[in-house]
C-alpha cells in the first residue's frame, strides 16, 4: 500500500527545490570566481610591501633582488620565461638559432617605444649588452663575457649574438631579470653606475616610473602604450619598503598593503582566511634556491670525503625541513634543484639519516672520540637569520661527536671570511640555481671560480672532470646530450660532496583575496595582475 500522500510528494519536491537552490548558491561564488579569473577587471592601484630598501632602479648593473622586484616591471628583456622556464617572445618577436648554436638571430618588434617616446631599436640591445650588462651585471658578465664574440645589428630590428663556440643557455639568460634592455639614447657613452636615470628610469615595460622616495615608497603607473595588447590591467603599482616582517604582515591584514613579497615561512600557518599565501620557487634574487653546507676543502679533516659523508648521514634533513623551514620546500638531493626537472637527476646516491654509519665513517677517517666523546671541533659560519637552521644542524652533529662552534656574521663579514679570507670550516649557504644550471650551479663548482668573489666556489673544489662536464653542457646545443652531461656531473658531485645539499627552499608571497593574476614565477610579476574589488 502506498502511504505517501500528495502533500508528502509536494514537501519532497519543495525540499528538492530548496536543496537545489542552496547548492546553486553555494556553487555560485566558485563559479563567479572562475568567471572573474577569466575576465580581469582593469584599473586600481596595487600596493606591494617589500623588505629591503632600493638604492637605485637600474636592473642592468645589479643582481640585487629588491632592485629587480621593482625595476623588472619598468623594463623588458628580449624574451620572457614562462612558468616552466620556456622562452616566449618579448622585445624579440622571433629568433633563429644558426650554425649549431653559435649564432642567435633575434627579430625585434618594431612597435615598441621607450617611456619617453623614443623608438626601441637594435642599437638599444647592442649598447645595453656592450656597455652595461657585460660590464656590470655580474651574472651576465660572468656567464657570457668570455664566450660572446660580438653582437651584430644588421638592421634596426635585427640583433645577432655571435659566440666563439656553440652556446646552449642563451635564451634562459635573456629575460628581464638577467638581461633588461636599457635605452641607448640615455646611456650610450655615459657612466651607468652614476647615471641620473638610475633614479628615474626610462624603460619599455608595462609600468612607467613616477616617483621614488628612498626607504619609503616607489610609484609606477600604467604604460598605456605597452606593446602587449591590453596589458597591464592595473592603473598603478606602489611599492612600500617595510623592513620589519611583523609590520609587513600586520599592514597586509589591515589592508594598508595588498601584496607582500618575502612573506616569512613562520607566518604561513598563522595567516588568517583574509590572507592568500602563494608559494613560489624563487626569491626576488633568483630562482630555485637551496640551503646547503659548504665544506672548506683546503682544511683538514674536510678534505676527506668520509668526513663529509659522515655529515650527510648525521644531519636530519627531513626534520630540518619540517621543524625549521615549516615544511616549506623539499629535501635536497643534489646540486641541481628538482624544480629544474629538465636537468635534475632523480637516481642520485642518497645519504639516509644514519648516525651509526656517520660514526663509522668518522672512525675510518681517524677521528675517534676523546674522553668527552668529541671527535672533531669546527667553526660553523652562518647569517643570523639562519641561526635556527644552524642550531638544529649543530645538535644533529653533536650526536656523533662533532662539536660545531656557531659563528653568526652579517652579510659583509660572512662574504669576507668565507670567500675572501677562506677562514672557515663549514659555512651555511643559501644560493639559487636560476633558469639553467650553467647560470647558478656551474659557477659554484668549477675550479676557475675558486676566487675571492661572493658566492663563488666556496669549498675550493677542484675537479677536472667536473670542469669538463659543466663546460661541455654549457656549449652543447643538443638537449639529450646536455641531460647526459648534467646527469654525470650530478653523480660525481653527490659522490664527492663538496657541499651538503639540505633543503630546496620555497618562498612565499601573500596578498589580500582581491589580488588576482600574480605571476609568481617571475620578478616582474604584476603585468597580468588585477584587483577583484
Amino acid at each position, binding site marked *: 500500500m502506498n502511504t505517501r500522500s500528495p502533500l508528502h510528494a509536494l514537501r519532497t519536491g519543495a525540499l528538492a527545490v530548496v536543496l537545489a537552490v542552496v547548492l546553486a548558491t553555494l556553487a555560485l561564488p566558485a563559479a563567479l570566481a572562475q568567471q572573474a579569473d577569466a575576465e580581469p577587471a582593469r584599473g586600481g*592601484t596595487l*600596493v606591494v610591501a617589500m623588505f629591503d*630598501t632600493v*638604492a*637605485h632602479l637600474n636592473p642592468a*648593473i*645589479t*643582481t*640585487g633582488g629588491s632592485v629587480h622586484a621593482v625595476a623588472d616591471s619598468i623594463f623588458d628583456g628580449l624574451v620572457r620565461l614562462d612558468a616552466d622556464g620556456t622562452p616566449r617572445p618579448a622585445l624579440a618577436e622571433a629568433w633563429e638559432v644558426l650554425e649549431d648554436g653559435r649564432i642567435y638571430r633575434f627579430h625585434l618588434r618594431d612597435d615598441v617605444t621607450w617611456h619617453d617616446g623614443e623608438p626601441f631599436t637594435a642599437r638599444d640591445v647592442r649598447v645595453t649588452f656592450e656597455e652595461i650588462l657585460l660590464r*656590470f651585471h*655580474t*651574472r651576465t*658578465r*660572468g656567464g657570457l*663575457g668570455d664566450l660572446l664574440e660580438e653582437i651584430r645589428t644588421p638592421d634596426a630590428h635585427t640583433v645577432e649574438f655571435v659566440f666563439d663556440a656553440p652556446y646552449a643557455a642563451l635564451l634562459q639568460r635573456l629575460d628581464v631579470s638577467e638581461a633588461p634592455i636599457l635605452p641607448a639614447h640615455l646611456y650610450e657613452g655615459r657612466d651607468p*653606475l*652614476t647615471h641620473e636615470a*638610475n633614479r628615474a628610469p626610462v624603460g619599455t615595460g608595462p609600468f612607467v616610473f613616477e616617483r621614488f*622616495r*628612498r*626607504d*619609503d*615608497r616607489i610609484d609606477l603607473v600604467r604604460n598605456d602604450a605597452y606593446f602587449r595588447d591590453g596589458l597591464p590591467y592595473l592603473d598603478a603599482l*606602489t611599492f*612600500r*619598503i*617595510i*623592513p*620589519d616582517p*611583523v*609590520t609587513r604582515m*600586520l*599592514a597586509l*591584514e*589591515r589592508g*594598508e*598593503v595588498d601584496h607582500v613579497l618575502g612573506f616569512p615561512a613562520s607566518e604561513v600557518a598563522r595567516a588568517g582566511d583574509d590572507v592568500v599565501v602563494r608559494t613560489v620557487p624563487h626569491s626576488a*634574487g633568483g630562482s630555485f634556491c637551496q640551503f646547503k653546507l659548504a665544506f672548506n676543502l683546503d682544511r683538514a679533516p674536510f678534505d676527506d670525503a668520509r668526513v663529509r659523508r659522515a655529515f650527510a648521514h648525521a644531519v636530519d634533513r627531513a626534520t630540518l625541513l619540517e621543524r625549521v623551514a615549516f615544511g616549506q620546500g623539499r629535501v635536497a638531493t643534489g646540486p641541481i634543484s628538482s624544480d629544474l626537472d629538465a636537468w635534475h637527476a632523480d637516481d642520485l646516491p642518497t645519504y639516509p639519516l644514519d648516525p651509526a654509519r656517520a660514526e663509522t665513517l668518522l672512525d675510518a677517517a681517524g677521528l675517534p672520540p676523546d674522553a668527552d666523546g668529541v671527535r672533531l671541533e669546527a667553526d660553523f659560519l652562518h647569517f643570523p637569520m639562519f641561526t635556527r637552521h644552524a642550531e638544529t644542524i649543530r645538535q644533529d652533529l653533536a650526536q656523533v661527536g662533532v662539536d660545531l662552534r656557531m659563528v653568526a*656574521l*652579517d*652579510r*659583509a*663579514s*660572512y*662574504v*669576507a*671570511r668565507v670567500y675572501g679570507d677562506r677562514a672557515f670550516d663549514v659555512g651555511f649557504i643559501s644560493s639559487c640555481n636560476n633558469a639553467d644550471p650553467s647560470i*647558478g650551479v656551474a*659557477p659554484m663548482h668549477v675550479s676557475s*671560480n675558486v*676566487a*675571492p*668573489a*661572493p*658566492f*663563488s666556489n666556496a669549498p675550493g673544489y677542484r675537479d677536472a672532470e667536473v670542469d669538463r662536464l659543466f663546460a661541455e653542457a654549457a656549449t652543447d646545443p643538443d638537449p639529450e646530450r646536455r641531460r647526459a652531461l648534467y646527469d654525470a656531473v650530478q653523480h660525481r658531485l653527490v659522490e664527492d660532496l663538496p657541499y651538503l645539499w639540505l633543503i630546496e627552499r620555497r618562498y612565499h608571497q601573500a596578498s589580500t583575496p582581491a589580488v588576482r593574476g600574480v605571476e609568481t614565477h617571475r620578478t616582474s610579476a604584476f603585468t597580468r595582475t588585477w584587483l577583484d574589488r
Partner: protein
Amino acid sequence: MSGYLARRLLQTIPLLLGVAAVVWGMIEVAPGDPIVAIAGEDGDPAYYAEMRERFGLDRPAPERFAAYLGNVARGDLGTSYRLQRPAAAVVLEALPATLLLVAPALLLATLLGTTLGTLAARRHGSRSDAALSALSLTGQALPVFWTAQLLVLVFAYRLAWFPVQGMEGLRGDAEGLARLADVAHHMVLPVAALTLQYAAPVARVARASVVDVLHRDYLRTALAKGLPAGRVLRAHALRTALLPVVTVVAAQMGFLVTGSVLVETVFAWPGVGRVMLGAMLARDLPVVTAALLLLAVAVVLANLLADLLYAALDPRVRDA
C-alpha cells in the same frame, strides 16, 4: 654671550674630526668591505677588483684615511658607495622625517616626565609615588622595539585607530591640510613609542630633584609661613628642581639616532635611523660617518641649549 656661543661652536670642529676618525677606524677594523653592496653577488673576481680600484678601496689604509680626513676637514663627506650620491645629502634628506618623530617626542616626554615626577615627589613616600616610580623604572627598562610592536598590535591592529606603518597613506595623494592630518595620524604611534622611552628617565630625575628641593630650608620656611603648597611648588621649587631635568633631556638627544633606528624600522618610517642601519650593513662608510657626524652635532647643540637654559633658570650661572 655671543663670544661664548662662537667659542663653543668652534670647539666642535676638532670634536667632529675626531668622530670622523673614530668611525673610520671602527669600520676599517670591522670585517667585510662594501664591495658586495657596490658590485652585487655572483660576480667574477676581475669585476670585484675593477670596482675596488674604481672606488679607491685597493689603496693602503693610511692613504685612504688621510684622503678621507682631508675631505671631511674641507666639509666634503664623500660619496655613498651604494647610492652614488653625496653622503651628506643622503643623510640630510632623511633628517626632517626623523625630527618629525624626535622633536615632538622629546617635548612630550619632558612635559609628561616632569609632571609625573613632580606628582610623585609631592606624594613622596606614598603608594602612588611607589607606583609612579615602578612605572618609570619599567618604562626605562622596556626596549623601545618591544613597546613599539605592542603599540602597533593594540592600537593599529586590534583597535584600528592608527595606521600600522609608514609616514603617509599609500592610496591616493592627499593635499594640503588633508595631507598634514594624514602625516599626523601616522605620527601618533611612533611618537608615542619614543615618548614613553624618553619620559621614564625624565620622570625619575624630576622626582628625585623635586624631593630634594622640597626638603631645603627655604621651602620649609615658605611652607611654615603658611603659603599654599601648590604655589610654593610652582613658584619656588620647580625652578630649581628643573635644572637636572634640563641635563637629562639634553642627554636624551644622544639616543636620538639609536631610538629612531628601532622605531623607524618597526613603523617603516623613512628617517636617518633607517639610512644609518642600511649603510652600516653595506659598510657604506661615507654615509655612516655622515650620520654619526650629524648625531655629534645634535649632541653638541643640545648641550649648548642645555647650558643656555641653565643660565636662564639659574641666576647664579648667568652671573658667574
